[in-house]
């Protein structure tokens, strides 16, 4: 297990290297002169040259890349063009909102998806099974940001039960925080639970056709115990894999959904930065989110190894 852990942590290094390289190169893709955009229309050529020098844009690409990595290793993601503060601070301040939204949605999606999948597998080839799978597929096909808007129209504008957007910090008022998170979290969970439901169903069907399930039934075990103790536990491994994939989908989904519901997370920060052409913030937001995802994937692999000792040492 220790060997596996070390191996898994080391294998994240090349991934993080590529991630940071891509993030650096995105800046280089920007067409035209960034200094002209920062300086505005009134800037003199001397002003522009000063901006370029301050940002290091007058240096060759390789030198800029080396500087970027040198700063990165010291935890410095640069300064925002427009916010007058460090990129890292701005991103980290917004991260909790995004993470809690994605986390709540992940828990909801997993719970609802597994319930749907287990029901479908246990009542295989019945109307319930088909209904659950149609629900799952329709959920998968609905664009989440649009579903968020529909939810706002339904519960915010027409019924008036929940706010149409905006955010209240948990420390200010837990009730209002819950009210502001309910719609976005359910939006993400409902559109993503289909992946889990389909995986749970096929994994459960596989497991339930095994001999040991028949044995458990034959020895008179209660149906519920057979399904949960013998069935679900052995179906967990493929389900965990899907939960890992889903965490990435939900992370990027949260980024988009924040814009729909006006939640002050990393997504809103990035989208605002795009409108202001504040590239360091875009880079920082992208880099930090990718790092979170890499870290979540490591956790998933560890959980995977925990549940299935077979794959631990021969990787």
């Amino acid at each position, binding site marked *: 297990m220790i060997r596996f852990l070390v191996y898994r942590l080391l294998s994240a290094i090349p991934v993080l290297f590529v991630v940071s390289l891509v993030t650096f190169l995105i800046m280089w893709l920007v067409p035209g002169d960034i200094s002209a955009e920062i300086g505005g229309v009134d800037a003199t050529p001397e002003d522009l040259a000063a901006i370029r020098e301050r940002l290091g844009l007058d240096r060759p690409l390789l030198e800029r890349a080396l500087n970027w990595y040198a700063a990165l290793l010291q935890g410095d993601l640069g300064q925002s063009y427009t916010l007058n503060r460090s990129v890292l601070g701005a991103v980290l301040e917004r991260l909790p909102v995004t993470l809690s939204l994605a986390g709540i949605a992940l828990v909801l999606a997993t719970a609802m998806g597994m319930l749907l999948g287990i029901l479908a597998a246990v009542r295989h080839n019945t109307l319930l099974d088909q209904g659950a799978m149609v629900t799952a597929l329709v959920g998968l096909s609905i664009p989440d940001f649009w579903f968020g808007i529909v939810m706002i129209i339904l519960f915010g504008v027409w019924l008036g039960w929940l706010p149409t957007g905006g955010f209240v910090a948990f420390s200010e008022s837990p009730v209002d925080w819950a009210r502001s998170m309910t719609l976005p979290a359910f939006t993400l969970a409902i559109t993503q639970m289909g992946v889990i439901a389909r995986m749970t169903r096929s994994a459960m069907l596989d497991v339930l056709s095994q001999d040991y399930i028949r044995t458990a039934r034959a020895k008179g075990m209660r149906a519920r115990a057979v399904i949960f103790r013998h069935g679900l536990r052995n179906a967990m491994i*493929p389900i965990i894999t899907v939960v890992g994939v889903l965490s990435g989908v939900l992370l*990027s989904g949260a980024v988009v959904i924040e814009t729909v519901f006006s939640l002050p997370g990393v997504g809103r920060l990035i989208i605002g930065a795009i409108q202001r052409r504040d590239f360091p913030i875009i880079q920082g937001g992208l880099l930090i989110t990718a790092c979170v995802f890499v870290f979540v994937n490591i956790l998933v692999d560890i959980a995977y190894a925990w549940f299935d000792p077979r794959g631990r040492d021969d990787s």
Partner: protein
Amino acid sequence: MTVELPSDTVSIGREIKLARRRRRLTFARRLFSHPSFLVGFVILVLFTMTALLADVLAPYEPTKINYRFILAPPSAEFWCGTDAYGRDVLSRIIYGTRVSLRIGVFVVVMTGILGTLLGTLASYVKWLDGLIMRSLDGLMAFPGVLLAIALAAALGPSEINAIIALTVTFTPRTARIVRASVIVVQGMQFIESAHAVGAGHGRIIFRYILANALSPLIVQLTFVFAVSIVAEAILSFLGVGPPPPAPSLGNIIAEGRSNIQEAWWIAVFPGLVIAVAVLGLNLMGDGLRDILDPRHSGARDKT
């Protein structure tokens, strides 16, 4: 002296040709008798026709501003209502499907080509394998469409840039799938026998390996098509996709978000169209997978 060809040779050749055609026919019949494939296929055909016949189908000019009908609710005159500039939402949706279709098709083609190229290269050229796969791992470490959003933001809002951004985002997984299936086919006996009878590398790659590794790629590309349509809408919604005033399903929804209090119809209808189109492609992909790869059923990745 003339050599008489045994009449058998000719008829054997014809037999093989007939058998091939029969196999193709039964394949098509099996596909179209698969209910989800059929439903998905019909939806895709309808979507494509809507996009192609937009000039005929749209009741109004999609960009024509009419201040007499600002935010008019759905009626016999304007089936899906009008937006804040009095433009007919239905006509804008119909023209918007063109953007989705164009972006979807281009992304599928480019992802297919690049994915096949990188996947085959990685499985064939050993010293490139590590480099290519680690780079793809790195690209896949950006969650969902986040990389596409950042790329489109850097390149600037336009249709071509959206296509580039989405291709970069969806190629890694496609290349991985191609690599995995090429490696499986490489180890099969008929490849060895092809080498033995002296077939060249090019012939083996195209005629034997890629032909047999095609099924997972086709299934994957159906899903790439579906995700591209959603991703285009996300990019346009966030303002980094094809820019207004030309309608795209995403930027109509964005306009609807700004008028959410007084005009639900602007955002709701284009999203329904996206959902139906994506559902169709997902159904097609499921059907294709059931028939091409019977072992695999159930869940899939949504990237």
